[in-house]
């Protein structure tokens, strides 16, 4: 346990300090890293929903898009400060998840696809509700991150620190829940939902909470992205890529662990952008599809699980790092 905390702390130090120190000059690389962390945040949220909530979703792009638009509009039309708007973006995405509550009664595949339908619906609403979102024309000149304590957070390094902090905060929350009694109950629900209800666990509420949390996290990441890219349009904000890349990342890195989706995101995204895209400028994501298929067939627990040592049952009762 202590070793794991030390590992995470070392990682945090390296991430906050060493990365900007080493790469701040290379704007392209920094952009790639920021984008991969954005995907990583969604991947973490997706894995949390799958792992703790037992729900697979094919529509996380919905939460991403809602968070993006909510934050951008609150800042631009209602004058909210950007930091609060990130939280509000998350809250709006969580509210969108409330609309999905009836879908919780459905069996696995049906829930997954019902969420996909929601994603389509939100995209179409964003395109058609021109009064609110300016429709397909999109919203431009979204305000950048402000200068705080003299530091300009709209710089690459600044944006990097913000998204890194978001992702690490998500990881902390995930770990905290997983080691709590709620986490125990969630695991028990996968074994036997009936048995958990018979001992007093409100399983529907527990799953709903995981859905809200996953949506909230994804919404915050979407909000971050809006103020980082400074431009939004429906096809971009609700693009299937925001669903697909996190799924590939989480499956590749191992969706049962907390670090898996993050490592998976960085590796998969960087590989895709730096290697595959260079080899095949169009259609390079075919490799991602193949990767996903290969993972499901040969290593459903993720590539990293092949390298992880098997730990004794007691130690892993609260999960791996």
């Amino acid at each position: 346990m202590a070793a794991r905390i030390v590992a995470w702390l070392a990682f945090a130090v390296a991430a906050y300090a060493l990365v900007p120190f080493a790469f701040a000059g290379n704007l392209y690389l920094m952009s790639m890293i920021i984008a991969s962390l954005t995907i990583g945040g969604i991947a973490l949220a997706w894995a949390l929903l799958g792992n703790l909530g037992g729900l697979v979703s094919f529509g996380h792009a919905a939460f991403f898009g809602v968070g993006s638009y909510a934050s951008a509009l609150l800042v631009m039309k209602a004058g909210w400060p950007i930091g609060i708007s990130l939280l509000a973006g998350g809250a709006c995405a969580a509210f969108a998840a409330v609309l999905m509550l009836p879908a919780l009664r459905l069996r696995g595949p049906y829930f997954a696809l019902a969420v996909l339908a929601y994603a389509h619906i939100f995209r179409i609403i964003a395109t058609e509700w021109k009064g609110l979102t300016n429709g397909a024309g999109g919203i431009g000149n979204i305000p950048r991150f402000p200068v705080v304590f003299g530091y300009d957070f709209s710089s690459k390094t600044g944006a990097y620190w913000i998204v890194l902090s978001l992702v690490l905060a998500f990881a902390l929350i995930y770990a905290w829940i997983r080691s709590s009694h709620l986490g125990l109950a969630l695991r028990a629900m996968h074994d036997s939902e009936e048995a958990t209800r018979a001992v007093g666990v409100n399983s529907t509420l527990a799953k709903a909470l995981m859905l809200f949390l996953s949506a909230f996290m994804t919404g915050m990441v979407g909000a971050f992205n809006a103020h980082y890219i400074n431009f939004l349009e429906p096809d971009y904000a609700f693009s299937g890529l925001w669903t697909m890349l996190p799924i590939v990342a989480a499956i590749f890195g191992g969706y049962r662990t907390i670090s898996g989706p993050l490592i998976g995101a960085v590796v998969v995204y960087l590989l895709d952008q730096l290697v595959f895209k260079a080899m095949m400028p169009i259609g390079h994501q075919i490799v991602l599809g193949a990767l996903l298929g290969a993972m499901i067939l040969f290593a459903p627990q993720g590539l990293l699980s092949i390298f992880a040592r098997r730990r004794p049952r007691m130690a892993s009762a609260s999960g791996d790092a």
Partner: protein
Amino acid sequence: MLELSDIGVRFGGLRALDGVSLSVADSEIVGLVGPNGAGKTTLFNVISGNLRPQRGSLRFAGADIGSVPAYARARLGIGRTFQIPQPMHTLTVAENLAVAQRFGASRVDAQAAAEILDLVQLTGLASRDAATSLSLAELKALEVAKALATRPRMLLLDEVLAGLEAVAKRRFTQMLADIHARYKLAIVIIEHDIETISTLCPRAAVLNFGQLIADGTPSVVFSQPDVVASYTGTVPDA
């Protein structure tokens, strides 16, 4: 403690329960018997909230619980075991109890958990994985322990002795008696073993084809001709 009034349950054309009325007092032990398919587990499902009856009412501790969901009934004090043990199998025995305590009794109490494990004779197995390494008898004991961990006022035991051989059965029966003595809770127990019922339960109720056909002391109930006929298959005289 429990008052069932005119409970009716239909599955399509089948009347699983037909006008069942039953009362269970505090600390009472009632045996529920009847041939397979009589509706015993269905009745449990109605009491624990897994099934909504189309007809009738149920009151628990004086309050109408007809619209209370299953998990809330567990918190109110209705504990149950399942015919086929449903452990939370990737959790350890101790964790099973911890979840039951935390959510069914609002407080995790290590001492109470230890006492329960002691009563069901699972103390040495507290850190074992519930799925992979427990025998049937141990799994059944875990079912009871889980239910007890929610601090129930009434315990519903669904064929908890089924599949155990004679020695284990006697041990289990004694265990149930000890539990009743210790916690003074009401117990309704579904069993096929008439000897067990007669030993353990001062009162027995008989279900047949969804109807309550007898309710009284075991010696009286089991010598009633229609009860005997329901088990032996002969048609009772009209």
